[in-house]
């Protein structure tokens, strides 16, 4: 009943089937035939792992169809649009045991596969009133539509799988507490300085014997401390949910079979909490007003024996408090060790070490030689020169010994300001809290300071052809123009031209 479409074939028999730009046979719709519901879930699960359903959603229809033999199967139809989209869908369908078709209204032919890269066309069309006729190279079947299945209701009916690994997942959480537990839990969070928001949701009574609607506290905690996670997961009356997409969350310890983030069927302004164990989901059509947790902290009033407030009788500036600076050992790890102070007695050692230093270290290091020794700096770390007292830079141009802290623990900016150094000075505070200032201009590259000038022997080259390469003189001609010789005039005659002559003699007397 099917034949393969050949290259450059233009005429097709199946109504509603056309050739797209790449030459692939394509109708207005695509259709996936799946034998059972679990295959549909498998298709959704596999497809949503890599792609979003957002582009398919406007045209996606899931239907249960029945063949003439009475077997029920599931079709998933959508707008075909392009062979790229169809290829993605067909690839996933092939993986889960489904068949992919394309067509426009009633007649759907098999979508292209490896055997027919341009697709298939039906040689004979079945004359029927049935709403769906599928042509496949293995079968041709007529189907009637039994009912339509909504994707959202399908997703809500699917039971999440048990997955204990989600307990350790970080990120925001929704915590739902029963009405009696809510205030205590809020107080616990406030006391533990856990930030979050809280709202109260109302659900209709589960039976006619309940007095009123069921209220539960819903808390959104952006970052639940790790120590509290087992408590929130195991305490009866408290249920924790992990957000699985806009407007939907899945209970902690469970994972929904379909990636819900790829299914934009939930209202982002509402909240659907999907529970495990087969329990019905909790749904809030509209998310209630949420308030800061701290606003619900327990308040206590002091006794009313004393006055409301003590009023000051006078004000004045506090007495200046000045304490000397101290440098004390610190257990904090060393960071930003970028300078070293080498005492004069250790300079000969530096000379010896210089032979072993790598080129990059020499290149990046700067040195200032002073009466108190040599100060070496390198922005990339000074550890490569294992000599002297290491310093860390706590502020631009302010160094303290590595492994030490200054007390009182003032900010580095405050300390730098208190030392009153100019911007051109580099300050080193040693372990006895004595500050040494070295002029910034005194630092020069270690590369230039290291090498002593060697006596050299002049060697004259025998012949140097050309010290510098000379470009050739390239004559380019341009048209002479109309009056090329207009300026060609001989030089003017020199002044006093001609043979010099004696002045005329005086006439004889």
């Amino acid at each position, binding site marked *: 009943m099917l034949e393969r479409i050949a290259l450059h074939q233009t005429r097709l028999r199946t109504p509603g089937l056309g050739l797209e730009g790449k030459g692939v046979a394509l109708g207005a719709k695509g259709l996936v035939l799946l034998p059972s519901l679990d295959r549909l879930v498998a298709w959704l699960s596999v497809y949503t792992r890599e792609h979003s359903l957002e582009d398919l959603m406007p045209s996606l229809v899931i239907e249960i169809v029945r063949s003439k033999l009475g077997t029920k199967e599931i079709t998933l139809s959508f707008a075909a649009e392009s062979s790229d989209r169809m290829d993605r869908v067909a690839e996933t369908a092939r993986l889960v045991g489904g068949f992919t078709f394309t067509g426009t209204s009633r007649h759907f032919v098999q979508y292209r596969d490896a055997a027919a890269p341009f697709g298939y066309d039906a040689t004979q069309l079945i004359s029927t009133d049935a709403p769906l006729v599928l042509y496949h190279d293995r079968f041709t079947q007529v189907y009637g539509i039994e009912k339509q299945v909504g994707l959202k209701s399908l997703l809500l009916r699917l039971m999440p799988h048990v997955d204990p690994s989600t307990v350790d997942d970080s990120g925001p959480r929704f915590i739902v507490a029963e009405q009696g537990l809510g205030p205590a839990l809020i107080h616990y969070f406030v006391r533990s300085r856990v930030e979050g928001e809280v709202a109260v949701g109302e659900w209709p009574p589960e039976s006619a014997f309940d007095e009123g609607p069921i209220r539960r506290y819903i808390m959104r905690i952006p970052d639940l401390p790790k120590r509290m996670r087992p408590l929130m997961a195991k305490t009866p009356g408290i249920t924790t949910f992990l957000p699985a997409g806009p407007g939907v969350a899945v209970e902690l310890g469970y994972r929904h079979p379909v990636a819900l983030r790829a299914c934009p069927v939930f209202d982002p302004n509402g909240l659907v909490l999907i529970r495990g164990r087969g329990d019905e989901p909790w749904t809030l059509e509209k998310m209630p007003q949420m308030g800061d947790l701290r606003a619900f902290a327990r308040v206590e009033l002091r006794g009313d024996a004393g006055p409301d407030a003590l009023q000051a009788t006078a004000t004045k500036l506090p007495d200046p408090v000045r304490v000397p600076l101290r440098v004390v050992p610190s257990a904090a790890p060393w960071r930003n060790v970028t300078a070293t102070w080498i005492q004069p007695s250790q300079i000969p050692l530096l000379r010896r070490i210089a032979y072993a230093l790598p080129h990059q270290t020499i290149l990046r290091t700067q040195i200032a030689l002073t009466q108190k020794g040599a100060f070496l700096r390198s922005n990339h770390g000074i550890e490569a020169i294992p000599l002297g007292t290491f310093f860390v830079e706590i502020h631009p141009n302010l160094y303290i010994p590595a492994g030490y802290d200054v007390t009182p623990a003032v900010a580095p900016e405050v300390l730098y300001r208190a030392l009153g150094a100019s911007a051109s000075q580099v300050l080193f505070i040693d372990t006895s809290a004595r500050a040494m200032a070295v002029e910034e201009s005194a630092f020069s590259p270690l590369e230039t300071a290291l090498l002593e000038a060697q006596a050299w022997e002049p060697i004259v080259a025998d012949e140097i052809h050309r010290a510098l390469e000379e*470009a*050739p003189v*390239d*004559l380019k001609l341009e048209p002479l123009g109309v009056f090329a*010789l207009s300026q060609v005039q*001989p030089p003017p005659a020199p002044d006093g031209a001609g043979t010099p002559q004696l002045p005329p003699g005086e006439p004889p007397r």
Partner: protein
Amino acid sequence: MAKDDPQALCERLFTTFLAPLVLGGTMRPGKPFGGKQALSIGDREPSDVDLLSRCELARVRVARKLAPIDTLARAPSGTEWALAAVLHDLVQSTHPGFDAVFRRSGPKRILDVVEKTLERIPPPKNVGEAISRHTWFSRMFELARTDIDVRWWTGSERFLGTEPPRRLLAWPELRRVTQTRTPRPLMDLPTSGSAVDPSRFGSMVETFLRKTPLTDLATLTRGSPAFVWTHENLSLVATHGGRTIVGRALALLPQRAVDAALGRATKQLFTAKAVRSLCVAVDLLRDRALMAASTRLDQDEPEPLTLGDQNDAAFAIGAGALVASHWIAQTGGGFNEAQRRTLLRVLAPAASSAAAKEVKALLG
């Protein structure tokens, strides 16, 4: 008028001709200047200070090959401007544009004016001026025009000193386009698509070289115009400083070719019995022979000077060796006894060669 403004002339001559002549690169000569304008420029300085500075650097480089000079006059003098304008006109006289109806007399008129202008330009007054002129014009024989022959499947065309249009070079593989680039040096220009008389052109170049005698001597191995001794280059060689500078300039050239050129020119003096000129020329040959011999003083077994196969070169070496031997024998030349003996031994074969005998006979 702006075109007669001496400063404008100076700018045009400098940027389009003189600076490329010194620095290399593309030279685009314009309308011929003529003698009146050439002499009107005077002692002016072009406004492009950067280009002038680069020229000065290149000129010092040329000068330092000959003498320990660090500075030169920045801008050309009046005579150097005039010489540059004359050379410009000489080059333009070979312009292929003159090879057309009603224009063929143009090159002759230009050369007439060039001749009259050169008569008004004096030779250098001293060695310093000779060096200065040489630094401007030392590369005049390196000046070359690139002629391009373009062939394609249905035809061919020749472009003299101009680039072929892009349409002719399009689709090179399909149209089988081939380009042949032939550089034409200055002395080949009259015979390549020009209307100028080649012999007159050669004679004008020779006259031009008289005005810059150091360039004349520093390029004496050129093919055309052949080197001849003139009053101007003999005047330069006659001074001790000039002879030293010339000796250094000649040392940069292939020695055999230098000997051949000097020998040929000196022979002409011999045949013309120009004794005073001959004495000056032979002094240079003597210095060269002494220079060649003294380089072998340090050797344990110094090799004697060889004459080679070329007659002219053998004549120059033989004459130089003969005069040098006499000079050492008579004056000592400032050498000690051992050195004198070694020098005489090195010079002896050349001084007693057939060429030297010929010189002796000519001197009579």
